[in-house]
């Protein structure tokens, strides 16, 4: 699976309250959530991400609450993948659960500039910055996580694994 998109950059400790502010947690429609993605840092984010974006963050991306609505808001705003130096644990699991690829990519936050065109190969973990020519190696996702992503998230994955028994 290869993902292409323009980079949108953020710094360290991007928390779930800026990814999706608490007052919007009452919404259950993912597209409504997407309208407020990253509102805490950049209210224009949904416009920028609409054509398909790859978010590049620093350390501890997604720290804070357990709200699954945070990765949902990113995914439905047009984000295809998140690269970061490190991820907060619950955000990381939630992103996989809802089918948003998240990769630890050491050095990406330094090498990639806002707007650079990136290509991410999920199988190999190879990340190419087509704008400046740099090539980076992200940590490859374990096989069972790739299976969940291939199925489009945990719900579809569970449906597949439960159905044959019924």
């Amino acid at each position, binding site marked *: 699976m290869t993902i292409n998109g323009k980079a949108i950059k953020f710094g*360290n*400790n991007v*928390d779930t*309250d*800026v990814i999706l*502010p*608490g*007052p919007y*947690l*009452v*919404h*259950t429609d993912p597209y409504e959530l997407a309208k407020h993605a990253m*509102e*805490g*840092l950049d209210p224009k984010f949904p416009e920028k991400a609409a054509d398909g974006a790859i978010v590049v963050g620093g*350390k*501890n991306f997604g*720290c*804070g*609450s*357990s*709200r*699954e*609505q945070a990765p949902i808001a990113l995914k439905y705003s047009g984000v295809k993948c998140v690269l970061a130096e*490190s*991820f*907060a*644990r*619950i955000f990381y*699991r*939630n992103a996989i*659960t*809802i089918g948003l690829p998240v990769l630890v990519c050491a050095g990406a936050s330094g090498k990639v500039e806002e707007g650079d065109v990136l290509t991410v190969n999920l199988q190999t973990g190879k990340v190419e910055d087509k704008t400046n020519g740099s090539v980076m190696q992200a940590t490859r996702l374990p096989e069972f996580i790739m299976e969940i992503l291939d199925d489009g*998230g*945990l*719900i579809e994955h*569970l*449906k597949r694994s*439960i*159905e044959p028994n019924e």
Partner: protein
Amino acid sequence: MNIIEKILANASGKKHVSPDDIVEANIDVAMTHDLTGPLAIKSFREIGAKKVWDKDKVVIILDHLVPASSVISAGLHKIVRNFAEEQGIKNFYDVGRGGVCHQVMPEKGHVRPGEVIVGSDSHTCTYGAFGAFATGIGSTEMAAVFATGKLWFRVPEVIKIDVTGKFQKWVTAKDMTLNIIGKIGADGAIYKGLEFGGSTIRDLTIDGRMVLCNMAVEMGAKAGIIEPDQKTLDYVKARTDKPFNPVKSDPDATYERVVDVDISELEPQVAVPHQVDNIKPVTEIAGTEINQAFIGSCTNGRLEDLQSAAQILKGKKIARGVRLIVIPASQEIYLNAVNEGLIKAFMEAGATIGNPNCGPCLGGHMGIMADGEACISTSNRNFIGRMGSTKSFVYLASPATVAASALTGTITDPRKVMEKVH
């Protein structure tokens, strides 16, 4: 093995586990609430599941927007309420029956040493105060737990934090917790466990231990945990007659590292905007103007917290231009606070009292901040926009520091206020 490894080994039917092992653990208790529950229920239906794996192991608590703050949140409550009814879940705490989930869980006997507890809320790590392995998960993972009663975990490396020393007057468990967060950093314990020990931790009350474990997630930790002792057993046995198996770390348990903290000289601490690990001693930022002061939340809405704040506020008036909001964390605490005269002291000082719920901590309702305003709060996060406007400011501190600051209208060292009295 350390305490976390032992609990995860027991829960997954293994004799031994080590960091980085992936285990599938049986879940003892699964908790959800009004903001993450509806999504869990939606996912539960989408998976095709019909019945929760064990209706007695599921706890549902309405606490984030309680009573309903809008037609939309009323709708969320209805979804959750109907689900509890349909599934026959008797551990359902509706409006007026419970309070903040992380207080209600132990209070109603749903937290026991040695258990594996998951909640679709990041502060589920609070229950580590009782020697349980407890961690926050997302809504869809909660749906999977509802359906199967199991969840996979990576056995975490554990950092041992040994705390020694006696607190100076008006320095509290919250100050110690903020100080530790400053030392470890907001990402210092990502994916890891934190085991808190040492003489200071043994001396802490149950309320104080809950403050510390509550904020383990603010260091990125998967769980914070304290070995159960007589205090733990006394608390738990008074609230449940279910059997449980307390677990302690082996003397030769291995840790990623051990961090020693001495709190003898510690002064009141404040986390300044907009990061939880941006810690300063109160003396360094004293005088910063505030518009609002909040005492409550799953971090500091307990009886000990209200007692400490009331001691400072009793017989005095809060400063003009300051809103003081006090929200007891549970019905039980609220009632005790009424009986002890704490609520009277707060009201006479000019405070607004809210019913037990999360209140303004996450910017939901009951004290949302406008552009340019500052709040000093006993809660757990000071992120941009956490309590309202993205242009507002949140300072985190102890109930004593928040109460003292409400009196002066600026961030104030509680020792200063109390020295004047005596």
